């Protein structure tokens, strides 16, 4: 596979960047009441599911009510975190000047405090997408997700850590912002995380308080069932979010980059990296909404602050432009992308699946690569 810089001529890269900018400008100029109506409807659906889910658990002694309650609450948390929280906190609706849709003020239904996440996600991950040692989302500091990460016996546990991360994903996202790996390496002092930790404790206390104390207690004798229901809803959301997010950057054919090749990047080169470093997931409209439109990871990484409902509208155009420049456009159904990620997690647990010379495409093969055309 060719490196980042020698895929296109510098002129082509800039021309490509201009085409991307043109799409962006067209969408930004078209933003209006429809976009607000859309997100307000999603918010209404989420709040209704939440109230219904909590309400049904008061009848949790009746198994169908318990199952329906957990289902509704799981969907509520998924919508809250993915289509609403993630996207609002990207500033996708800041132009509405509605305080309830403000990236600065929004708080989501998960233990990770919005303020900590915004920094690590919006800035670090979206700026340094898939740059090894810069993008801390590569393996979340605990996994080996890139052959360029040097192998260590610790990584033999790669599949186990990944499974644990999937189950406790909201806690993983919260602790991710502590940059524990950097503290261990001495790059960051424990004392410097004081504010980050204080926010975590406050937020986690509130979340744990409502899900595992207040709502169970309110249901009286049903408390254990309610607690179990709430834990199941959190688990469902955790597994879903983990799956979608890991399919966004880690399927086999998605590329990662070095700091050297991304130095002094132009805007066109940055766009190029976003395309090479992201992968979409195919599916129907409801599936896209439940992924927070992260199933359009490529479009999201190109235009992180454009309302996510616009991604499906521009996907065809982005793909056609990629084809025009001979660039890959990684996409596939969820099961295939998940399998690809799982295989990577297992392979990279082993020392001989590293990078002596070739990039991982050589070992993991381009069989799953969906050509742009």
């Amino acid at each position, binding site marked *: 596979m060719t490196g980042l810089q020698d895929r296109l001529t510098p002129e082509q890269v800039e021309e490509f960047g201009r085409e991307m900018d043109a799409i962006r400008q067209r969408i930004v100029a078209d933003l209006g009441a429809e976009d607000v109506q859309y997100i307000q409807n999603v918010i209404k659906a989420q709040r209704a599911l939440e109230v219904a889910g909590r309400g049904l658990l008061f009848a949790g002694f009746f198994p169908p009510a318990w199952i329906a309650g957990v289902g509704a609450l799981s969907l509520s948390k998924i919508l809250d975190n993915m289509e609403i929280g993630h996207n609002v906190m990207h500033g996708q609706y800041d132009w509405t000047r509605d305080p309830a849709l403000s*990236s*600065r003020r929004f708080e989501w239904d998960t233990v990770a405090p919005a303020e900590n996440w915004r920094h690590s996600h919006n800035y670090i991950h979206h700026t340094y997408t898939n740059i090894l040692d810069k993008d801390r989302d590569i393996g979340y500091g605990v996994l080996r997700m890139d052959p360029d990460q040097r192998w260590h016996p610790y990584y033999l546990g790669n599949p186990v850590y990944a499974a644990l991360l999937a189950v406790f994903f909201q806690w993983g996202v919260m602790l991710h912002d502590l940059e524990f790996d950097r503290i261990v390496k001495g790059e960051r002092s424990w004392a410097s995380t004081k504010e980050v930790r204080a926010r975590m404790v406050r937020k986690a206390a509130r979340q744990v308080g409502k899900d595992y104390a207040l709502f169970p207690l309110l249901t009286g004798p049903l408390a254990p069932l309610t607690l179990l229901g709430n834990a199941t809803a959190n688990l469902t959301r955790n597994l879903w979010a983990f799956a979608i997010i890991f399919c966004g950057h880690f399927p086999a054919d998605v590329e990662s980059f070095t700091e050297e090749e991304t130095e002094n990047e132009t805007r066109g080169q940055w766009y190029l990296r976003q395309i090479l470093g992201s992968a979409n997931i195919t599916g129907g409209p409801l599936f896209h909404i439940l992924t927070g439109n992260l199933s359009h990871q490529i479009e999201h990484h190109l235009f992180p602050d454009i309302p996510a409902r616009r991604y499906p509208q521009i996907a065809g155009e982005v793909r056609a432009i990629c084809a025009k420049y001979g660039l890959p456009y990684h996409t596939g159904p969820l099961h295939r992308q998940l399998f690809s990620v799982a295989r990577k997690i297992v392979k990279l647990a082993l020392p001989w699946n590293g990078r002596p010379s070739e990039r991982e495409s050589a070992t993991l093969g381009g069989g799953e690569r969906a050509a742009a055309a």
Partner: protein
Amino acid sequence: MPRIAALAEALLTPHGADRYLELIHPMLVRREIRGVVTSVRRQTADTVTFTVRPSRAWRGFTAGQYVRITVDIDGVRRTRCYSPASSQHRRDELEFTVKADPSGLVSRHLHERITEGAVLGLSEPDGAFTLPRPRPGRLVLISGGSGITPVLSMLRTLADEGHRGEIVFLHYANTADDVLYRDELADLARRLPGLRVVLGYTHQDSGGDLHGFCTAEHLDAVAPDRAGTLTYLCGPPGLLTAVRALTEHRGTSERLRTEDFAPPSLELDTTNATGTVRFAHSGREIANSGRPLLEQAEEAGLSPEHGCRMGICFSCTTVKARGCVRNALSGELSHDDDEEIQLCISVPVGDVEINA
């Protein structure tokens, strides 16, 4: 009740009770202040007068103060300052009169679109253009056009208090057809024994009491200078300038109170300004001139949304991605990344990046 409210907030974390209540009805919110429009009338061709019943968080206002009204236009929240014209003693209903500015976004929207049942965003009241207590024995209230609202609020408040002092209410309108609250003023004159209403027409030389723009003769005729008289003034810039000059000439400036929404004095240092201002969304860059960011953005060819240009209305609030800015009103420094700042009163300190 407070305990139930606290429990509800704990159960509905992180969004809070208001975000659920508003889905049942927008006026059910407990913390936010909103108002539902209860009546709409058009007194003159280019104005709209509407009454608003505020939500439960409203704590009242003092006559002469203003409120920030927020409306949704094409999906975007827009905020402007308007002074209620109603008495401060009417807690359940606020009245506003807005003149449609041909180039104004919010005033035109209100003029053309507002209907009974519409829900508006309201703020806490603000402003120091208010009457002292005890009420002064001699008052002159001067207004022009829709600038009548804060002084009419004072007049209605005094009427509700059974005020018995002398009041001269001098109001300027373009023509007889443009006079706002004509019937209400006549009615107030009957309720307030000390009130004298004087109407001036700037573009009509018949009818009314005075003609042409405000002059020394006007003031001498209706409000001769007498010790202890307080004058309250609100209206277009021309009227403000004229009355200010006249009171200065009389040496009574310290007894003049004005509501002019004029820019306050900002502390600017344009000689020692350093760094570059980068407007991230447009990709434009400009060398920091030491002037407020709104002006610098306009200099760079951008046209950011704005309102008062003096730090009141928050229309120009924008996210500062990086760098440090100084609030030119308070002198406060803001160092944090991704912080919302008001462009009109924020001055860059070195390099800054603005999401505009």
